[in-house]
């Protein structure tokens, strides 16, 4: 069993090594046709740029790094040249920005011109990366069925292992997570070989070439599946965890991945039916609304569905079941956190200070998302071009761009997932997600959901607080005999699972008022003569 596990580690590392190694070995050959259609699609007017790049790259075998550098350097040189002219022709200026140039400008050319071993051996390449990593991952986790002994809570050694206790392995993992997101969001031109590994699947599903987002989708689903298997083994005695993991995995694979791709295959808009605004912050962007309106009955349905999801379905469901139905049963971000992130849940900070920071941050993001969307809708209905300055030299487009960059990319991706091994698996959900903030209000003020505390049984051991991914100090409530109703609780159910004394139960009771969290003056079991006491006190 141990041997199988070790071979599994080896295979996984090999898969990742190939994957990462391929980033450094990309080769490209830009044909004249590819080059010309690229120049046209990017609307490049600078002869200086065309003269200098065409010679350097067309019909030459060059690496991704060279290709990217030539384009970037020549674009800079061209801009300098144009500005040095007595009269600058602004049409010939190439707009450059570090977080946009690579993905919007260089990536399309690099993607279209890739050649080499990888593009000729798609199936083998898929096996060498995804295949090895998935098989290896399963070989690592499945032996735990025997190795961990009889079913039960086996968090043995979690705080004594470098990977799960902010050790060197944890920090290296965090570095790779963050690096991946930076490449994915801002420099996809460097991950074209990894993208090629899923080209076959993309062709099969939608008939299109794989993009970086398709690669991300396949990775997301594979990682979730492998780590869901880990959950199935770890919590095989716990029906709540088994069902929850199955459902959240189903929603990701079906609604987050397959259905949108199949829609594209039928020339319909890519649409994730479970992704609600404001988490899905681009929903009300003009291009999305226009796209949906122009996509026939289905498009209109998607538009109405998206609005109903946020305005009606989400709050009603939270009223009945708490926000867990979304955050830990349906949501894609939650799905990754509950699978890949599960080994890191204990790293969330439980201090009062972090709770304060959390409330400012998450509600700040909700305000940001709401005002950004309000502005977007205003310019949409007022028929103002989104790039037009509205006030203070700022356009709606600027605000959208900032939100997309700081919240959509950096916060939810680079930090949200990158910090799993450092700050726990719900960094985004706890500190940033505007939808979670919205659901939190409903859960806190009008919902049947609570975590019931079982009378006087709590022994203050702290397992519940330690394993709360949202950093809720569950014990602080449990030892007082108070039920837990916190806006941030995503109802993952792990506090209840790790409790050694059967103190906590997630449930949807019949009352929704303050009695949900009533604290008794005296803990259950201590039968003081209350009547007598009130007499004496008054």
């Amino acid at each position, binding site marked *: 069993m141990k041997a199988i596990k070790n071979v599994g580690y080896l295979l996984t590392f090999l898969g990742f090594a190939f994957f990462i190694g391929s980033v450094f070995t990309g080769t490209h050959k830009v044909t004249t046709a590819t080059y010309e259609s690229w120049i046209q699609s990017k609307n490049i007017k600078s002869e200086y740029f065309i003269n200098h790049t065409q010679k350097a790259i067309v019909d030459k075998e060059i690496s991704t790094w060279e290709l990217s550098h030539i384009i970037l350097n020549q674009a800079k040189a061209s801009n300098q040249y144009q500005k040095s002219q007595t009269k600058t022709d602004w049409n010939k200026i190439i707009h450059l920005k570090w977080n946009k140039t690579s993905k919007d400008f260089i990536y399309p050319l690099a993607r279209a011109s890739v050649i080499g071993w990888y593009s000729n051996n798609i199936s083998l390449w898929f096996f060498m990366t995804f295949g090895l990593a998935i098989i290896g991952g399963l070989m690592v986790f499945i032996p735990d069925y025997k190795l961990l002994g009889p079913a039960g809570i086996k968090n043995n050694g979690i705080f004594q292992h470098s990977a799960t206790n902010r050790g060197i392995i944890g920090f290296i993992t965090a570095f790779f997570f963050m690096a991946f997101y930076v490449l994915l969001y801002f420099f996809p031109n460097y991950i074209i070989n990894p993208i090629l590994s899923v080209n076959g699947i993309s062709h099969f599903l939608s008939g299109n070439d794989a993009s970086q987002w398709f690669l991300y989708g396949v990775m997301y689903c594979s990682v979730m599946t492998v780590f869901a298997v880990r959950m199935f083994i770890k919590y095989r005695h716990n029906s709540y965890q088994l069902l929850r993991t199955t459902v959240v995995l189903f929603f990701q694979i079906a609604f987050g991945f397959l259905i949108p791709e199949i829609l594209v295959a039928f020339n319909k808009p890519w649409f994730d039916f479970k992704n609600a605004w404001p988490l899905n912050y681009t929903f009300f962007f003009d291009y999305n609304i226009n796209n949906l309106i122009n996509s026939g009955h289905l498009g209109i349905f998607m538009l109405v569905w998206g609005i109903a999801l946020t305005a009606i379905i989400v709050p009603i469901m939270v009223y009945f079941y708490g926000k867990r139905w979304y955050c830990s049963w349906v949501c894609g971000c939650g799905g990754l956190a509950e699978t890949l992130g599960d080994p890191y849940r204990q790293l969330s900070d439980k201090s009062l200070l972090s709770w304060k920071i959390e409330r400012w941050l998450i509600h700040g993001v909700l305000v940001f998302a709401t005002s950004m969307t309000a502005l977007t809708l205003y310019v949409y209905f007022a028929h103002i071009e989104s790039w037009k300055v509205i006030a203070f030299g700022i356009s709606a487009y600027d605000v959208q761009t900032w939100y997309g960059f700081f919240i959509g990319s950096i916060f939810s991706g680079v930090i949200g997932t990158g910090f799993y091994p450092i700050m726990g698996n719900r960094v985004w959900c706890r500190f940033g997600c505007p939808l979670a903030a919205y659901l939190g209000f409903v859960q806190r003020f009008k919902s049947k959901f609570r975590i*019931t505390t079982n*009378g006087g049984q709590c022994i203050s051991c702290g397992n519940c607080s330690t394993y709360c991914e949202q950093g809720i100090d569950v014990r602080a409530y449990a030892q007082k005999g108070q039920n837990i109703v916190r806006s941030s609780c995503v109802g993952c159910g792990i506090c209840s699972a790790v409790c050694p004394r059967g103190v906590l139960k997630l449930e949807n009771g019949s009352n929704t008022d303050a009695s949900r969290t009533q604290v008794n003056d005296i803990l259950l*079991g201590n039968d003081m003569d209350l009547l007598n*006491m009130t007499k004496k006190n008054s």
Partner: protein
Amino acid sequence: MKQVIIIGNGIAGITAARHIRKKSDYHITIVSSETKYFFSRTALMYVFMGHIKFEHTQPYENWFWKKNRIDLIQAHVQKVEIASKTLILDNNSSISYDDLIIATGSKPNKFGWPGQDLKGVMGMYSKQDLDEITHYAKDCKRAVIVGGGLIGIEMAEMFASKNIPVTFLVRETSFWNKVLPAQESEMINKHIKEHHIDLLLDTNLIEILSDEYGRAKAVVTDKGETIPCNLVGLTAGVSPNVSFLKDSGIQLDKGVLVNRYLETNIPNIYAIGDCAQQQSAIGERRPIEAVWYTGRMMGETVARTICGTPTKYNPGHWFNSAKFFDIEYQTYGWITAEPKENEARFYWEHTDSKKCLHFNFDKNSKRFIGINTLGIRLRHQLFDKWLTEEKSIEYVLEHLKDANFDPEFYKQYENEIVAKFNIENGTSLKAKKKSWKRIFQTS
């Protein structure tokens, strides 16, 4: 301003301090030599196993004490001078009090076994014990645990989690069978063995042998067996940690003797928690109860008395819980190992041998007396209510679904349980559907 000094920063002392602060402005000082800040003793095993870190056992952040004006002194009390109302500390300083609360807890029992003070031989009670166990576990080839109670089985789980082979010496013929009825006890025996623990029942420790460095190298049992090991856990119960009070004038028996107001024979001196001994037992409870929640309840109670509302310590219906490896245990009301004369029992066990319910009720009146549950969680508040209202066994079984506290989507067995009861007792009960209305009904 009144000076309240509490000796001991365990659950009893800390609860007293917190409640005194809630009700008064008194000057509160806590003296303990174990650690500066309060931690949960019950969680030490999880620190060893790597489930949590030591800091996670501290229920309050470090700023809590200053903010609530509770002074912490890390020192050992050598002597209590009742005439001058002064404590003499081991750092040669002294402090005086107006009210003194003794909450010094317990210490592990040692019964004069040869070799009991060797290196690598320890109990499992204090932070210092944990540190020592952690140290000696590093090169441990086999651990022997002596004493088949709750701490013993926790210690077995600790070592097993580190893949250290464990031999578990239990004096009784079945695990904890002075408390658990035979069926539950047998279930735990099996579960212990399932975890590859070498369980030796009906076996006593004779001697611990030393190697040339003064560390334990083997134990000898009364069966004539010599078991090589380099770590020995002594977990044959605990007794009140009160030896420092011997000549103080405070009346002692095994613990500090207190009345129902938790007062000792000396005015302004109180004792609570594990170290307190009731002059006469309350109900069927033992005079000394080394249980987490009784410490907490005594803390709540004594705080009221000290703050001007003299309050009797009046523990309600007995309840308790534990975890034996992977099997959770809860109990409400009384169900002793052997049925008493007036008692009838009803036992249900799941085919997986990991879940059971054991009901105790009055043969004639059918009054429900108590329940043991293994592997199924039950609602404390409902059982407390049912015991107070003296419900019948039939009532309890009919409403058992209300009391189920297992996580959602767990398989439920109430119908099966009631069916078995019907067969054995010729009744025709039916388990009623769960009702929130009944669960929330307060009286």
